[in-house]
């Protein structure tokens, strides 16, 4: 009996990133909902305004936006739970975003050399953004 090697569809980079984009989108919805709920719980005492609420929903870090004031930052946000939440946000958002940039560039750049060149640059920027984000999270 002749066995023929059938190339397996899927499980290449494109398919993995397709799935990852959907899943990370849903995960960021959940993270934002948890963030907005906790911001409401913690900020209700201090009459938090809408802009502050929106900023603290996405990235709960005291070095983030200077004029958003939550008086008891150290009590409320600077603990391990929120640091892990921020790292998740940074990782998911950076990967989702830079993968999206790769897809957009592939649509408009036709030369293979430039495609790979820009992919390398995007990869470096991606690693750089994640390291910078984690440094800010742990350093503040």
């Amino acid at each position, binding site marked *: 009996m002749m066995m023929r090697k059938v190339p397996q569809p899927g499980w290449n980079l494109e398919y993995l990133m397709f799935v990852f984009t*959907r899943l990370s989108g849903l995960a960021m919805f959940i993270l934002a909902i948890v963030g907005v709920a906790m911001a409401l719980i913690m900020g209700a005492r201090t009459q938090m305004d809408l802009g502050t609420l*929106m900023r603290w929903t996405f*990235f709960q870090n005291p070095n983030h*936006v200077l004029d958003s004031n939550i008086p008891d930052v150290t009590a409320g946000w600077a603990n391990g739970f929120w640091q892990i939440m921020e790292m998740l946000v*940074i990782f998911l958002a950076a990967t989702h*975003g830079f993968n999206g940039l790769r897809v*957009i560039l592939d649509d408009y750049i036709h030369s293979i050399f430039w495609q790979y060149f820009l992919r390398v640059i995007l990869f470096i920027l991606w690693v750089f*953004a994640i390291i910078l984000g984690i440094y*800010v999270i742990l350093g503040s």
Partner: protein
Amino acid sequence: MALKRNVNFFEGLRYKGGGPMLAWILHRISALVIIFFISLHVLSSFFTLETGSDLAIAYNTLYESVYFQVIVYFCVIFHAINGLRIIILDTWPKLVEYQHEATWFEWLIIIPIYGITIFVMIQRAISGG
């Protein structure tokens, strides 16, 4: 592999894709805006933490302005809701038959959320508080 098209930009605009095509274009533009914004945001957080330099402070005052927030908030809310529509249509492919209705429904969700928020934001900005 990139598709070779013999269509220029303005011919592309005349393609009558309707609502879903507008959603696709806006999804792409809002993605670029969000990437630009968040990349600068991370850099600014880093420089605020490390140096507190004038550049970081200047960028902070830029994105604290209400005009900037109105644009970025539209991009974020549109990208989120439109992404949810894409996830739903991809997960249940039979629903693609109703993609025009899905696009209208998406705007029905976006407009109230966005409208209420920018109403409050602009009201606060005008009354100075």
